[in-house]
């Protein structure tokens, strides 16, 4: 187990390192840098001033040198300085995290609460019209862009009750009820979309398990259908579902980027889009590496969780 974990951690570190190279090079390929953008808004500025700013930001150094500097800074916990705000990257990002984390958690809860029961019902009623309707509904969820779903939710609220959720962020400490509503709407939009995959996997995993002998045994013992499905079958069907929830997490981040933009929530995901537009390299690099780390470690955590959930796949000895 320990060697396995060490091996996995090693691969994770290698992947992150590779990712840092990819991201760094990609961002330097971009036409125009922050100096161009700062200057295009400031009108004419003389060239010597430009050189001074480039020097201050380290943009005059060769690209490999900039990369080495970045790595060295990251290793010491210094995430760099935002070009645009002239503040340390971490200080800008820190207050944005709780917003994104809250939205992500809520969306995941919506997705699981919606996805697992739908999948179970769909499997139990396989090939009935109810199954078809549920499958079409979940596929529809997968097909609608979450930013559009968000806009439609807002429009529907306006049309039906003539009320629009606040378009500026309301902290929980200020008005708890409004805060909850403000987060519930985007969570619904992202969660519905994410539930689609969970529904499908739950359905197929449960269908597979329902064919096993031990289910027949349980029924033969006279167990009620409800107990057979929810406690015998689902327990064994849940493993692939957990994997998907892990993968979903990466998927979710994509959904957050646009929903935070639509609902104007000051989260990390919305900020990433803005930072990309401004070519604020330190912020983009930091955020993208952060996302990568979250994805890689959530996948790792899911794999570890396997052993806990299913003794059969517990990694022994070697």
């Amino acid at each position: 187990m320990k060697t396995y974990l060490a091996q996995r951690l090693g691969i994770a570190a290698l992947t992150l390192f590779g990712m840092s190279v990819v991201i760094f090079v990609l961002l330097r390929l971009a036409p125009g840098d922050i100096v161009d953008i700062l200057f295009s808004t400031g009108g004419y500025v003389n060239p010597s001033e430009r050189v001074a700013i480039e020097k201050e930001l380290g943009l005059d150094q060769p690209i490999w040198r900039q990369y080495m500097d970045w790595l060295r800074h990251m290793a010491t916990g210094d995430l760099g300085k935002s070009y645009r705000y002239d503040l340390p990257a971490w200080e800008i990002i820190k207050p944005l995290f709780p917003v994104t984390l809250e939205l992500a958690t809520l969306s995941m809860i919506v997705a699981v609460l919606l996805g697992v029961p739908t999948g179970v019902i769909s499997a139990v009623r396989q090939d009935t019209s109810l199954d078809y309707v549920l499958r079409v509904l979940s596929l529809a969820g997968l097909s609608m862009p979450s930013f559009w779903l968000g806009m439609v939710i807002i429009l529907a609220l306006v049309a039906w009750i003539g009320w629009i959720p606040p378009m500026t962020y309301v902290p929980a400490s200020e008005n708890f009820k409004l805060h909850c509503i403000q987060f519930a709407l985007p969570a619904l939009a992202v969660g519905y979309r994410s539930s689609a995959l969970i529904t499908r996997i739950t359905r197929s995993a449960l269908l597979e398990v329902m064919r096993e002998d031990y289910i027949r045994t349980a029924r033969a013992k006279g167990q009620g259908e409800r107990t057979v499905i929810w406690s015998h079958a689902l327990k064994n069907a849940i493993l692939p579902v957990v994997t998907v929830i892990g993968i979903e997490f990466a998927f979710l981040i994509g959904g957050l980027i646009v929903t935070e933009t639509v609902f104007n929530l000051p989260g990390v995901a919305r900020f990433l889009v803005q930072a990309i537009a401004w070519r604020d390299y330190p912020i983009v690099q930091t955020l993208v590496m952060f996302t990568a780390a979250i994805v890689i470690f959530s996948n790792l955590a899911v794999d570890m969780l396997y052993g806990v959930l299913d003794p059969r796949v517990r990694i022994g000895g070697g």
Partner: protein
Amino acid sequence: MAAERRPTRASAAAILLRFCRKKPLGAAGGFIMLLIVFTAIFANVLQTQDPIATNAADTLARPSAAHWLGTDHLGRDIYSRILHGARVSLLVGLGSTAVASLLGGVIGLLSGYVGGKTDLVVQRIMDILQGLPLLVLALVMSAALGPSIPNVILAISIPIMPRAARVIRASVLSIREFQYVEAARALGVRHLRIAFRHILPNTIGPFIVLATAQLGSAILVEATLSFLGLGVPEPYPSWGRMLSVSAAEYAQKAPWLVLFPGMAISLAVFGSNLLGDALRDTLDPRLRGA
């Protein structure tokens, strides 16, 4: 199951008919896709107005006989813009799916066939590309490359390429062990020929399944990039950009600005998802019902 056996000499029409009967949802998906292809090809004929022409006198007009789906804040006809948007969506969707499948296919084929250290290194590189959410990588790439249609295609195809490589590799790994491959090798057939001539044609099933499944997500990513202003540039009408900032601003006054382009995106992605599911069930029975 006898019914599943491939008919040896069934006509294409008979195969199609059987597919429609066995997979009504898949057939519906295929019909939706055909409809969108038709719209994209004949957009010039079907349009009622110039999709790019602005009209200051007729902004945010309600749906009417002159403007079937209304006009936007610049007085452009939404119906005609949606027709032309089908071109952009299909072009980018099909283009990036093709690039990703071809590139991923060749990488997966060689990686699986050669095996050993090459395979290991290639797999690690795929890990790196897959370590980021699709949208995040596409976002950074399209920002880095700059807005243009070929760049958007590239920015979408690179992030989805590893999936193609993985699927083809997995299928190559099993085909490689078949006796006919061994026979070819014993006959002295060269490696490249074995890989491309003897193994590749047998991966066609998973390949088609994968490509259809990717089409939906490629269309969706294009819409999202364009929505964020990092996708297809003006003046091409793109469904995603029709929903961007300006649409949100006028949404309450003119809901049609938001409703119709979004429906177009959802319909296109829905169609390719339905078709992809049915094809997967038909061509790749191992994944049935998944």
